[in-house]
């Protein structure tokens, strides 16, 4: 059984391209070309070179000594926080801007939640000298102010999404609307493994550099190419997809996906899609989705803007449904505590998204010999205000 995408763009039952006809030419153009472009040696060379010289890859695999001592297991942190712009998101935007160039696009749009994807998109657009418009929920604009400032510095136009919950889902709607209105010259850089096929697969492939590096780095450090567990938080699921990618079909490696339980899974203020979601269609993809009995998409909640999404990518829906991955939900408070703990044990301020992953060590035991790789998806600079307020520092 494969847990990767099939030829039709599905992961088991999930995936596909449920898009209005207006988007068909765009998505189809991409679908027809993406694999060929990605496999083109000149593309590979340019992508790899930028990841190395511009993004700063490989990101280190860091043995977290003091955390390992505290939790009595071997904890490695995959340092995506050290990437240029501060999160894993840039792996994907580098890939997609090169893709957009090869497709002859001259205008880029993107949605963003935490702002990391927006910054990563604005960054690559500046790098290539291409116009950039970023849609961002009004609430997220307020709670991720530093990232809004960064996008402006980088020359991007940030447009607030004022409908619905005014967060990531609505920003995505607005971006899709923009795309519908600009079908010829515009490439939509989706920021996670969501959206219509081929986006989930394309984004996962760009992020797969994460697990590719883990293999080598673990081999260097531990003499094995696979860990016992990989842990990653799941908003849409791109950092998890990247960290899991090369281990998807190797069931000796435990995959742990961490979702945001907000104020409690059943509090009504949560984003724990695996528990609360049912199969449905969001943003062009059939996947697990938080919704009312009537099929209206629910407004999710998480203290972390990047996990505040009512769905998960179709890969993760399938990993959940098939039992291939273990899904754990972490509340706001648990995440914040774990974030502070990492600061004070390892001197690393994680993004609040990432803090959810770190919180699992209080929830779940590992044995002393287990090698547990946590994907440290991003740094917490964007979240300082939230941390400071939460802890009254």
């Amino acid at each position, binding site marked *: 059984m494969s847990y990767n995408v099939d030829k039709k763009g599905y992961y088991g039952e999930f995936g*596909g*391209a*449920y*898009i*209005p*006809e*207006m988007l*068909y*030419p765009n998505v189809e153009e991409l679908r027809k070309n993406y694999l060929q472009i990605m496999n083109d040696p000149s593309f590979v060379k340019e992508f790899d070179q930028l990841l190395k010289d511009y993004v700063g890859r490989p990101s280190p695999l860091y043995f977290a000594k003091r955390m390992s001592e505290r939790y009595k297991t071997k904890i490695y942190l995959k340092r995506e926080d050290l990437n240029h712009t501060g999160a894993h998101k840039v792996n994907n935007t580098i890939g997609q801007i090169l893709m957009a160039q090869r497709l002859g696009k001259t205008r880029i749009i993107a949605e963003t939640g935490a702002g990391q994807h927006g910054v990563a998109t604005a960054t690559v657009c500046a790098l290539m000298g291409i116009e950039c418009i970023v849609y961002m929920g009004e609430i997220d604009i307020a709670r991720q102010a530093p990232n809004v400032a960064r996008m402006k510095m980088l020359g991007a136009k940030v447009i607030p999404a004022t*409908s*619905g919950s005014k967060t990531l*889902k*609505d920003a995505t*709607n607005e971006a*899709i*609307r923009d795309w*519908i*209105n*600009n*079908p*010829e010259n515009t490439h939509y850089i989706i920021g996670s493994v969501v959206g219509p096929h081929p986006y989930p697969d394309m984004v996962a492939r760009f992020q797969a550099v994460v697990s590719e590096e883990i293999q080598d780095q673990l081999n260097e450090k531990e003499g094995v190419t696979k860990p016992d567990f990989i842990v990653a938080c799941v908003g849409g699921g791109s950092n998890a997809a990247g960290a899991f990618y090369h281990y998807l079909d190797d069931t000796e490696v435990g995959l742990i996906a961490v979702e945001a339980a907000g104020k409690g899974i059943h509090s009504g203020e949560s984003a724990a899609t695996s528990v609360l979601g*049912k*199969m*449905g*269609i*969001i*943003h*062009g993809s059939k996947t697990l*989705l938080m*919704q009312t*009995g*009537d*099929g*209206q*998409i629910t407004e999710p909640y998480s203290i972390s803007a990047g996990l505040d999404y009512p769905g998960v990518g179709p890969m993760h829906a399938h990993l959940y449904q098939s039992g291939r991955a273990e899904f754990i939900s972490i509340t706001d408070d648990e995440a914040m505590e774990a974030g502070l703990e990492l600061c004070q044990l390892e001197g690393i301020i994680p993004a609040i998204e990432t803090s959810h992953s770190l919180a699992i060590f209080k929830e779940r035991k590992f044995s002393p010999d287990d090698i547990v790789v946590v994907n440290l998806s991003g740094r917490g600079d964007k979240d300082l205000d939230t941390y400071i307020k939460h802890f009254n520092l």
Partner: protein
Amino acid sequence: MNRIKKTLDQDKKILSIYFTAGFPQLEDTVSVIKELELNGVDMIEIGLPFSDPLADGPTIQASSTQALVNGMTSSSLFEQLKDIREHVKIPLVIMGYFNPIFQFGVEAFCKKCQEIGIDGLIIPDLPVDVYHQKYQKIFESSGLYNILLITPQTSEERILYIDSVSKGFIYMVSSASTTGAKSGFGKIQTDYFQRISDMDLDNPQIVGFGISNEETFNMATQYNKGAIIGSAFIKVLENKGINGIGEFIKSIRPNN
């Protein structure tokens, strides 16, 4: 015989109106439909509101949000419409995004439509191939037409495919846009209308998006079987309520 076909077989240009069910008030749905028929509209698209209507512009989006706040659901729409055929003769089409229909169950949804006397469905985010492979049989066994969209960017090959799968008419999106985005047609549109017209498809085409008044209605229907007005009509409901319908419809076809 499906009412859509019967209506389209007439030798006249079709005026079709889109509105959102449960808007402005939850209980307005039936009144709006009746008032539209009374004023000579040929066909009606009843919008099933959705939380995330990504092909719609601000006007229709806002009306959907309001309708949801009012409490509109698939079940209550069916409840409101259950006796509609005692009063209304013109074709009725439900237009809605796929997720609410998927949650209701596609088959159950179609059966409900059939019971009530709905003639067709427009599901903008249900692509033709998925429809073709998974749902066409269900639609056909319920006597429902599935109305598919084409846009100026749709390739000739794909138009032929859509035409082959379509029943009733093809929903011809006037320009690359969400609903209500642009108004007025230029040479690009008329060229497009002409091009499709020249393809001599099996299904007639009705134009939607960007039609708001007599001028755009006439321009669109010069090349095609009819036209659909959405956002402009929603604005009328917003501003004048049901009482504004008669005047608006007359303004579109003053010589009717």
